[in-house]
């Protein structure tokens, strides 16, 4: 996904000193960025803080942004780095994951019915079974649909490393879903 012309113009305006152009530039990514942060941190408050810091960092480093690249992916890279830094700094990850697993009410969804709830719980449960690196790779590649190269770039690692972690992550996700919902596996 390449940067569109409107985004290019908005970036140029911000860099020329018209800072009011930053809001229309990032508003389309407001929810996607928080959602990404939430999937990586599994903590609602933490996710908002990660996203907020990511927007501030994006503003400060906009001069270094390579316009040949997708703006969305660049923002995702900043958010993923911020999430990782925070998780390294704090010891909140375990508590956040456990909260997410045991407190389904923290992520209510629009779907009614047992299967909808099960599906959402799957993601919560299964992501918690992954290592931080596997989760980053899985979320960026399989949920956010970045390609392998962009995922590697966002995580500052090699494509080989992405593939290795992605393979492990998918296997764990499949096993976790099988273990939790064997009836769904059988009926499809």
């Amino acid at each position, binding site marked *: 996904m390449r940067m569109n012309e409107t985004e290019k113009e908005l970036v140029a305006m911000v860099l020329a000193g018209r800072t009011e152009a930053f809001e229309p530039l990032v508003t389309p990514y407001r929810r996607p960025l928080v959602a990404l942060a939430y999937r990586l941190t599994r903590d609602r408050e933490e996710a908002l803080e990660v996203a907020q810091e990511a927007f501030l960092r994006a503003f400060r480093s906009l001069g270094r942004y390579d316009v040949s690249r997708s703006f969305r992916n660049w923002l995702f890279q900043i958010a993923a780095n911020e999430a990782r830094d925070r998780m390294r700094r704090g010891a909140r990850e375990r508590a956040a994951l456990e909260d997410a697993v045991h407190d389904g009410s923290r992520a209510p969804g629009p779907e009614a019915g047992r299967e909808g709830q099960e599906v959402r719980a799957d*993601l919560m449960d299964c992501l918690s079974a992954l290592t931080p690196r596997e989760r980053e790779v899985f979320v960026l590649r399989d949920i956010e649909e970045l390609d392998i190269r962009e995922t590697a770039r966002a995580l500052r690692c090699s494509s080989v490393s992405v593939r290795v972690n992605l393979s492990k992550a998918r296997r764990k996700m*499949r096993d976790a879903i099988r273990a939790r919902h064997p009836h769904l596996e059988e009926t499809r």
Partner: protein
Amino acid sequence: MTCSKARKLMALYAGGDLSERRTRAAGAHLDSCPACRKELEGYRRALARAKAAAGAEIAPDWSEGQWRALMARVMGDATKRKKEQAGRVKSVPRARWAAAAGAAAALVLAAVMLLQNGSGFRPGSVATAPGAAEPMAGVLGDPSAQDVVSVTLVSQETGLQVVWFFNRNFEWKGDRE
């Protein structure tokens, strides 16, 4: 390709993340192996479920007030940075002007004193700095020359110091770097 090798590649194959060569090799094996196809289906279902779950998930979000506050913080950050940059730009010439003005004042003062006393530079009559470890070029025989005034000029950019010496009559007696 053996089943064992094919299954190692299956997770990446399911998402289309193998190289062309490996994709072809794994595909050829899958065409002839129902067990591995079943394995592949397991991965594909898991991926589909994860994506569906992500789509159904309601992530947290800011209220409109919080979002406005965040954008205001960004704007505030920008204003602050602009001021800091402007401050840095202004402070440099101010310091240079101060140094230049100081040097010019010292030169004018020295010139005025020299003109008033009507004495020019006399290479053979250089004074000794008070407290200097060594006499400069020559020693004053006149006891009155012990009352010496010195003017020190310091370059803020290079750190170079020039000291001018005058006797009690403000007659210029020499210099030292």
